[in-house]
């Protein structure tokens, strides 16, 4: 189907009129928006100082609370322990105790106050400590060499066998 030229022009005319008409004068409105101060600049300096102080206080409080709050540690599964002599059947039939497998732990961060001056107990403990070991002078190699072995020398004696004595036949001793 083709649209007759007159109908197409008429449709275009209606479509044109749909976006036609007296348009607004946007110059003043846009200029007003361009020159308007941004919202953060419309506040007074006193208001901003109060807001800044409040924000800093809240931030410090939140940080302090986060550092001091106890840290909750989740359940920790205890490892299975099998005793050497335990019967397997008894382990299966016995109902497990629900509290025996899971340990809830609450860990509180403890701060150890360290004083720069040692207490009397610490001084006493330090006085009882043994003297440090003497360190050999590493610059002298002979001082760290092992001692010579004190083993007696072997003595080799000459082999001396007694001469074989041969007796004549018919003697009481007989020949051996």
């Amino acid at each position, binding site marked *: 189907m083709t649209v007759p030229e*007159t109908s197409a022009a008429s449709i*275009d*005319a209606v*479509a*044109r*009129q749909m976006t*036609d008409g007296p348009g607004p004068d*946007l110059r003043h409105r*846009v200029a007003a928006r361009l020159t308007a101060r941004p919202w953060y600049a419309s506040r007074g300096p006193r208001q901003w100082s109060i807001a800044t102080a409040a924000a800093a206080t809240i931030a410090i409080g939140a940080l302090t609370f986060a550092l001091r709050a106890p840290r909750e540690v989740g359940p920790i599964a205890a490892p299975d322990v099998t005793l050497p002599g335990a019967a397997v059947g008894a382990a299966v039939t016995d109902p497990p105790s629900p509290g025996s497998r899971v340990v809830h732990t609450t860990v509180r961060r403890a701060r150890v106050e360290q004083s720069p001056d040692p207490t009397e107990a610490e001084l006493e403990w330090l006085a009882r400590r043994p003297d440090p070991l003497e360190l050999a002078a590493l610059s002298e190699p002979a001082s760290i060499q092992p001692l010579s072995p004190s083993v007696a020398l072997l003595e080799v004696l000459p082999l001396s066998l007694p001469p074989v004595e041969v007796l004549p036949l018919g003697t009481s001793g007989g020949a051996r």
Partner: protein
Amino acid sequence: MSSSPVTVSVADLVPLGRLLDDSVPESRETPQVRAWLDAARAGDAAAFGELVGLYQRVVFRTALAALGDREDAEDVSQDAFVLAWRKLPNFRGDAMFRTWLLTIVWRRAIDRRRARRLAWFRRPAATADDGTFDPLDALAAPDADPERAAVAVDLARRTRRIIGELSPTLRDTLLLAASGEHSYDDIGRLLGAPVGTIKWRVSEARRQVAARLEATGQAAISHDRT
């Protein structure tokens, strides 16, 4: 009161074709526009105001083509100019300022349309009785007799309603093309489609409107005879 049926065709609406002859041809920036652009880039709000005055009509009509509501189109046009002012340092001048500006307007208008889910064609059309401006009244021939003019205006309103019921793709293309403010190349850049596709959409939109006009016209005539 009995009235004789008056038949009128869409060809009786005047003025017609001459409305489409004054489209704005695209050319490079004029020296005056270039000077305003340079000054606006340097922070001169008054120079940017001159650009607003120069392009406010095409910007408003482009937004109106997408939204169909004059108040929304005014808001979007203002937002688009303010956004263009903020982004002006990023404008490199590869494209014409008008094309760049219209791209901003179109995107903001489409965002507004999506956000509010405007069923703008379902809104009651402004009538001459309530004192508001209805551009369709200008389509009736001034020298026609009152009855014929009233029928012509009614036909124009039916045409507008049918255009509003087109798919957004066809309706946007038809309204932009018929506005006379944009070339097919401009529309292709705005809608992200090749020129051939834009031409087909315009033709298809006209065909669907003509077909539905014919169908509803027959129904109106038969209803009038009963």
